[in-house]
């Protein structure tokens, strides 16, 4: 039996109770958790308390349309994953012979196009906002890696479409892969390997990077404007 006030999400001293071997309950105070689970929760709550994770207010400068593209990228990724999941039920040749399969493939195709469009606008927006300022370098870096992982994931998607485009892209890209020795490991003409990369390994990797990116955004908050006046100094001036 235990009661732990740290579940409220505060960093205050916790109170916990435990059953002693004699059956009596001893109550003690502690500054730090004593289990792996407690340590993880403690660190999580200190790094990302609920008001940071799911805020109801944001700085007044978060008003531009450019901020929409981060969220648009995430929801289009959800559509990419959803339409891709349905395609896996029919297999890579489904859309050649079924109108339903063709429609789902079209959803996948266009959600990918929108995903990249939104992501590239988001990326350029963050560049011109110098969004890596204030210890946010890792946020930028995970975003850049997410873009590159997306390029790789999309590429493997194109080579598993089992049509002329897949043949030609595989034929051309094998030379690039082979030229630097990567063809010895990643064979673009191996449909089985490319399917597994596209529907398993790469989406899992991309998903993890995106989750890390979003958590870092929530942890550090939205970067202030480049030429912003110090609000504390302004308040002091008014006072």
């Amino acid at each position, binding site marked *: 039996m235990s009661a732990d006030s740290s579940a409220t999400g505060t960093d205050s001293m916790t109170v916990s109770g435990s059953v002693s071997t004699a059956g009596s309950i001893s109550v003690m105070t502690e500054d730090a958790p004593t289990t792996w689970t407690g340590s993880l929760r403690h660190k999580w709550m200190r790094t990302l308390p609920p008001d940071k994770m*799911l805020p*109801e*207010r944001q*700085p*007044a400068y*978060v*008003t531009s349309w450019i901020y929409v593209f981060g969220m648009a990228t*995430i*929801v*289009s990724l*959800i*559509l990419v994953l959803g339409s891709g999941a349905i395609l896996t039920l029919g297999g890579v040749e489904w859309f050649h012979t079924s109108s339903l399969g063709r*429609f789902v493939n*079209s*959803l996948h*195709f266009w*959600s990918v*196009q*929108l995903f*990249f469009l939104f992501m*590239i606008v988001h990326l350029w927006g963050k*560049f*011109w906002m*110098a969004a890596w300022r*204030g*210890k*946010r370098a890792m946020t*930028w*870096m995970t975003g*850049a890696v997410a873009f590159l992982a997306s390029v790789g994931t999309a*590429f493997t998607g*194109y080579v598993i479409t089992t*049509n*002329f485009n897949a*043949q030609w*892209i*595989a034929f051309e890209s*094998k030379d690039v892969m*082979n*030229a*630097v*020795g990567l*063809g010895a*490991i990643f*064979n673009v*003409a*191996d*449909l*089985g390997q490319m399917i597994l990369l596209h529907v398993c390994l790469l989406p899992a990797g991309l998903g993890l990077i995106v989750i890390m990116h979003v958590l870092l955004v929530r942890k550090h*908050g939205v970067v*202030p*404007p*480049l*030429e*912003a*006046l*110090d*609000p*504390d100094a*302004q308040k002091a001036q008014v006072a």
Partner: protein
Amino acid sequence: MSTKHEAKADLDTRPWTGPTRHYDILKEGAIALVIVTVLTVGLAALFSSPDDAQLTFKGWAQSSPDTMYTAAVSELAGSSESAGYGPPYNNNSDGLSVGPIALQKWAGVTHPFDAAQDLVIAPLESQQQPADVAAALATWKAATADQQAAWAEAYDTALADAEGDAAKAAEGDYGPVPALATGLVAMGASGAYDGAILSRGSFFTTDYTKQLLFMGDGGYMEDKAVAANLGGDTWGMMNEAGSWPGQSWLAFASVWYQLPMFNTEGNVLTDNADAIIFFILVVLCLIMILVPFIPGLRSLPRWIPLHRLVWKQYYKENGRA
């Protein structure tokens, strides 16, 4: 660092204490999901998606038998692109390199491939053949490697001189080579080659490396690709067959292939373009990832103040430093 810069860095780092506004992240996400879903469904319903039928050996043999015939001879002679490719398929060349860095060679042969045996002899052997082709096969197999090479190379040269027209090839001692090539084209036209090259005696297979190499050797696939504006010097893989958008996000890679230094025949840079451009891309990717730490590049947003458009409203209401 100046006091002004220190104060700015502090402002960027510490929690925001200035004016705030109401914000509902879940509501924004829900609205975005609805809008992007409507957009996706609308685009899918209106424009569908590309799906040009795959090329087959049957189609190749029926529509362009001469090029398939010539390709078969070049596989036997070892003069085709795939026969002399190098790693990871064979050791018939070292492959590409950037100066002393020969990653293709160092990676070694991991997908062994013998053009004559895998693309011509083995598929012919896997089927019941007409008497002349069966006899040609027996003659080929009974000959020494030197004799095989002499026949195939002589006929390959004669065909090249006749611009691929077998009827105009000079007379010579070509052994069983013409009959083998004829048998292969006949097998292709019947559709049997597609099955033979795919299965290679196995029940399961997902690896289509060999048929892709053969399809690429004959010029048949490349002609189709160039006609569809998919050639390397016209932004290649970035495009999509038909009028659909392609992989436009590959522009940062495709642009290098448009430069004359990387697409002019006989140029050492062109010969090793795939390897050189790959290294250029690795450097570019590292630069993109490490922007926050690269002096000059990380200051571009300060020097070119496009951010004033982003925060125009905030600056108007709260002033600018």
